[in-house]
């Protein structure tokens, strides 16, 4: 099968090129693409949540913020390495998702969306009370904490340049690794027994229950796992940004609205959708960077247009038109049995 070799090859080349960027590209570009990769991680998570598990959350910024604050607490209060803090951030976000799921899963559709948003607001207001981490105005990572983090010296020896550039390169590589892990893990998950069950639930929850699939259990699992991924991404974002405040860490616009836009224009419920979406998003951002708020208006209009005229998004429409799906999530029937 030509396709079976070609696609991984193209992906491998793309990843290799992206990985080489800190060596060959400018620091500004590395910082730009760091943000793009992080948005892609968030988008891949949100797509699993909304596109596959049917959980349309507008409160994922809760887990970004919790992950970021947990990482800051680890570094500032307990003197841990930022990278350890990142893992802790993911775990704390996942732990928080358990009580959130307990309440939010009683709500459905629009009520679920509003419920998750309310949770994120509660988290933002609560962490604004944490005086040790700067309260409502926020705080910065201690001087040098990021530059002395695990791996930064090695990176600096590898690519040269300033300590700050080494931090940028390291966080960039981590973001790239996170994207790759998320893509492979999502693909494996969706092709697994649980992924199949999830797609059955998406099509018909009543019938799914009658063939033994437990919708709530699968949805809760996806909610937990995506909280972990989103939390880690939150920690990583704020290692690079270096400064945290409740408004920035729990930004609905940055960590959820943009992410929803990316997934919707790319193609919700498809695996490559978020990748296409983030490319479009980045291109628009570059094109419209000089126009201020007009940029947001244009984004909104494009989002509306896609929802009205190409509901499956760019990738979904492409598959529908051409019938070509290089990353099929389906299970083909065994060959020997096909003859009938």
């Amino acid at each position: 099968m030509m396709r079976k070799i070609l696609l991984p090859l193209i992906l491998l080349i793309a990843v290799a090129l992206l990985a080489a960027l800190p060596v060959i590209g400018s620091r500004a570009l590395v910082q730009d693409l760091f943000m793009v990769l992080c948005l892609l991680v968030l988008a891949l998570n949100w797509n699993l949540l909304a596109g596959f598990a049917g959980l349309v959350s507008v409160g994922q910024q809760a887990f970004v913020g919790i992950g970021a604050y947990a990482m800051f607490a680890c570094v500032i209060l307990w003197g841990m390495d930022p990278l350890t803090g990142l893992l802790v951030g993911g775990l704390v976000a996942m732990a928080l998702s358990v009580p959130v799921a307990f309440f939010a899963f009683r709500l459905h559709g629009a009520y679920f969306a509003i419920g998750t948003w309310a949770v994120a607001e509660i988290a933002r207001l609560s962490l604004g009370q944490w005086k040790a981490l700067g309260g409502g105005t926020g705080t910065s990572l201690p001087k040098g904490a990021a530059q002395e983090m695990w791996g930064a010296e090695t990176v600096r020896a590898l690519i040269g340049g300033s300590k700050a550039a080494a931090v940028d390169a390291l966080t960039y590589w981590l973001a790239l690794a996170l994207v790759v892990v998320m893509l492979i893990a999502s693909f494996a998950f969706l092709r697994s027994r649980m992924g199949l069950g999830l797609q059955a639930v998406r099509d018909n929850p009543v019938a799914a229950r009658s063939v033994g699939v437990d919708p709530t259990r699968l949805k809760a699992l996806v909610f937990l796992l995506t909280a972990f991924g989103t939390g880690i991404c939150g920690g990583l974002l704020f290692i690079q940004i270096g400064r945290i405040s409740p408004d920035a860490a729990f930004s609905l616009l940055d960590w959820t609205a943009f992410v929803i836009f990316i997934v919707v224009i790319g193609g919700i419920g498809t695996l490559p959708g978020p990748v296409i979406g983030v490319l479009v998003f980045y291109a628009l951002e570059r094109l419209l960077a000089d126009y201020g708020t007009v940029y947001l208006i244009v984004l909104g209009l494009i989002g509306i247009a896609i929802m009205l005229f190409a509901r499956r998004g760019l990738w979904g429409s492409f598959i529908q038109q051409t019938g070509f799906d290089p990353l099929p999530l389906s299970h083909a029937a065994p060959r020997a049995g096909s003859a009938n």
Partner: protein
Amino acid sequence: MAILSLQGVSKSFGALRVTDDVSFALEPGEALGIIGPNGAGKSTLFNLITGNLRPDQGRVMLDGRDITDETPMQRCASGIGRSFQIPQPFGNLSVYENLLVAARFGGGLAATEAPAHCMDILRRTGLARHADRKAGGLPLLDRKRLELARAMATRPRVILLDEIAGGLTDAECVELVATIRAIHAEGTAIIWIEHVLHALTSVVSRLMVLNFGRMLMIGAPDAVMAAPEVREIYLGIEA
């Protein structure tokens, strides 16, 4: 011991009593038919057995074990399979995948065993040529077949069939009856709700008549069909 039994099961929707004190026992491998006018509570009875509805009173037992508080998922895993009156396919999944979900979850089969099991059922139900087709695009007969095939894929010991022959041509019906007889011959117990009487009586050994949620009669098909009250209520014929 009875494989499935209902003991004084009742269910009301508001003031309407849709299932009224129904009790019966199904022997292992038995085939039981259920008839009754529209609105008699036949499908509701199925929903009470599968756990989609909870009875207000009474117990549902499987192998002598009380399953009244179990979810549809647990009951499916314990061996109760069902088809829906209005086909409920997983429309975006292929026909094969529809069965694969059922085999992996309800049937409890491993990834290595499930494909052969599914293909075997697809061949037996005449769906093998549609295996990779999206289930949402199937015509009515194939949707009905898929309901049966998917229920079979969960490896049930009791299979509940809800008007699976309705709307089919005579030739299609004959084919379907042959499949159901084959399932029955393997020892699977069957409860079958059907308006197409000749199809039903060619399989079942006992017949139950429901009317206004109450069990009017249960017994040998000939005796039941000959009973004056059944002829009057169900067929609208003067005794």
